[in-house]
């Protein structure tokens, strides 16, 4: 499957929400931004990006509208909804709790 194996399940959703929280973007721009911010660590194939976006839209966390891009082409722009913002907060919180837990477990093994 095209899901990146090294991407923790559910993380992609959070990443996408986080990216869109900054500004509305179209799909291509999102994929560029993903590469850029994660420094190629998180490889998200183009093929798996769109299903993820559609899923978020289906959940009601992001919404889409057609706009023209800087170079004057029509593209579908996604932006965060109120529900999405709440979801992001929740997931971010979960994430930091999980991360803290994991890192403490990791530390435990080292000592």
């Amino acid at each position, binding site marked *: 499957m095209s899901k990146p194996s090294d991407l923790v399940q559910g993380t992609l959703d959070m990443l996408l929400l986080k990216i869109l929280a900054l500004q509305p973007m179209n799909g291509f721009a999102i*994929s560029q931004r993903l590469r850029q911010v994660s420094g190629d660590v998180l490889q998200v194939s183009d093929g798996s990006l*769109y299903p993820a976006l*559609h899923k978020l839209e*289906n*959940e*009601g966390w992001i919404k889409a509208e057609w706009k023209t891009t800087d170079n004057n082409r029509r593209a579908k722009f996604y932006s965060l909804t109120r*529900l999405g913002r709440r979801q992001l907060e929740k997931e971010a919180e979960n994430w930091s709790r999980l991360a803290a837990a994991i890192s403490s477990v990791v530390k435990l093994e080292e000592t």
Partner: protein
Amino acid sequence: MRAANWIHTLPMKLRALFERRRVESELDEELRYHIQCRTEENAANGMSANEARREALIAMGGIEKAKEECRDQRGLSFLESAWQDLRIAARGLLMRPGFATVTILTLALGIGACTAVFSVVDRVLFRSLPYPQDEQLVSFGVKAPFEGIEFMLAPEYNVLRTQPGPFQSMTSLTPGGADCDLTEQNPMRLSCALVESTFLSTLGIRPVVGRDFTRDDDQPKAPRVALISYGLWRARFGGDPKAVGKFLSLDDKPVEVIGVLPASFEMPTLSAADVLLTQALDESAFDRNHPRVVLRAFARLKPSMAIPQATAALQPWYQDSLRFVPPQFRAEVSLRVRSLRDRQIEDSRVGAWVLLGAVIAVLLLACTNVANLLLVRAVGRQRELAVRAALGASRGRLIQQTLTESLLLALLGGAAGCALAYLLLRLFVSIAPEGIVRLQQASLDLRVLGFCVGISLLSGILFGVVPAFTRPVPESLAGKTVRTMARGFFRYALVAGQIAGSVILLTGAGLLLRSLWRMENVPMGLEAQRVMSAQISLATHRYPDLPQQFAFYHDLEARLSRVPGLEQVAFSNSLPPSGGMQATFLASIEVAGKPKFSEGTGGMVGYRSVTPNYFPALGIHIIRGRAFTKQDRAGTESPVILSEALAAKLFPNEDPLGKTMRYTAGDAPGPWRIVVGVAANVKNNGLTSDADPEFYVPWKNEPGTYIRRAFLTFRTSLSPATVAPWVRTEIAALDPTVPVQIATMSERVSKLTQRPRFDATLLSLFAGIGVVLAALGLYGVVSFFVSQRTQEIGVRMALGATPRNIAKLVLRNVAGWTLGGAALGILGAWFCARLLQSLLFEVKAHDPTLLVTALLILLGVALIAAWIPARRATRVDPVVALRYE
């Protein structure tokens, strides 16, 4: 899916549902844009144009695949899948038009008939009367053999009034009310009711405008005041509140309007009333030794007082009042207290329950049929469901899909049922006799419709979904039909139940039809062919006394004798075969030279004033002696003609001719009368009751004669439509204000059978529906049996079974259940027939011939329904059958 999200994403889902193409093209455009951008990026990184595009596509991993995954992510929304199911269901039904049509028809018949009948019956049996706390209202009085409805003598009523015992309040009205004429610029005949001042307050009704009667209004010398109906208020005063205080001229006397009745007001007797007037009874009416005023009494029970208690509480008063009843009456009268509803629906009650029972049976038949059809269909779908399950459809999804189909069927059936209910109700109202209480107000009852649709939905859902719950058997994947014995048993039991129900319905309908036939062919003692009659009633204020009334009829007779085509023009003050003639008791008739008849009242004896032409006009035979002559109308002699029955009672084993008799009408005995003839008996009490003995007196001015209302009767060979206007013209030429009702004798007679005809028609209709449903059910089950066992039949035939053997195999299977159902039906019919007894005329409820006929009809239909598929089984080609599955 969480509720909050659901609201936010609904617009998107609806778009996905209804703008599928647009959503698809947007997805396409979105991905194309991405490929384009990626291609440009790759090109900018130095790839060749082709290379750049190829890389971009590879990165995407295939556009179609990405699209598919996007669609998957969106998932099928509930709406979308519902829509999909709906289309599948509709396609499925269209593929089996027979199944769909039969199911929808069955549902429509069940729902339609049930809703229509219940809408009618509801008004009669269940809906509350238009009075507050209507369950407290009772009608009470003395029940006597000569009067179907309880009545009160004014003096006794007056006694009770001072000690109302179990009643909060009581009131009375004068029976029959009174025709009264509005004699103003536009004369109008109105219905006036004479009531006690407590009338409205007892019923719990207040005038919408103005005031109620007070006790003072009810005094004999009080100025006359009136409450007018809402309709009259609108028609006469345009709904002006200032109408109160204005005067109406009723029968040339001024009457002050003091109030207006509510629009929904109806008399407890259900008779029409445009104006309520006070009775204003004087002291003489309350003389216990000379009762002369009869009242209808109503009362409101004290709270928590039930009718039996109230009856018991009235006993002392009743026993006391018996002292004033002539001794010969005492044994024949009784006290009756009954609810107002019972009084109103008296003769509608049994009919209404019978209809209700019949229609519920039809609804049950329809439901079992639907259940059966769906079960059969479900077995046919085992394979389809197994395939779907194997392809990954979840249990829930399968249930949703089957449910959709059942619901679609039920909704279509429900819609057809609504339409049918509407049509049936219109039909009922148009064929219904006048006597059915409140039928005109009956409208489709939405609650009932909901109930019936609900029942059928429920049966549809229940039996439609059951198969989806059972785990699909893997064998069915192979195309093998899996036989489930348990459900087979159930199906046959359903069919047996249907057959039983149909036998009951058929027997009931047969009984009613037979009774109707008897009624229509009962010998009436008169010839109705080519006889027409006109009912005339003269207004009191224009024709106050007998001489003026006789003068009117005399002039009319002279005019009509000049009209061509009318023969045997006759007048009488009543007309058979309906009741309503003047009457006295046998005990009040004296025969010269004989002791008075003294045991009890001796029963009722009717009498009529008739002109000489009365006998030839109605074709009543004079058996002995002669009919009246012209001289009898003028002379001083007082001849009388007896009916055969009366002659036998008064002069057993004697020749009555030349004997003298007299009767007492009112206070003093009438003149001695010489018997000049004996006439054949005529039905004079309706068609179903036994005829009362009667006698005829000549049409002439004698004390006690009543001719304010009279019937004109004549023979004609012309069509009624031609003659009627001529008669109207002649009457109008004399007095245009006289109301006339013209009808042929046949119409008058058939009016008497209207009610039984209505009951019989409806019950036959339902029985017919029931038989059709049972036949459909049987047909379905047998066809299913055959189709399921095609292979077995093939094997048997290959092994040498003859078509005869095969038919036997199929029919034997059905026969047991059919006979079982029929036996059950006979048992049920035996019990149900008793309930019909009171509706029957000269027919015994337990009529073996009828039962056998019903049974034969049903078995015949069952045989045909089973034979068609059985024949199909015998035509099975063994080679095809062996390869069948």
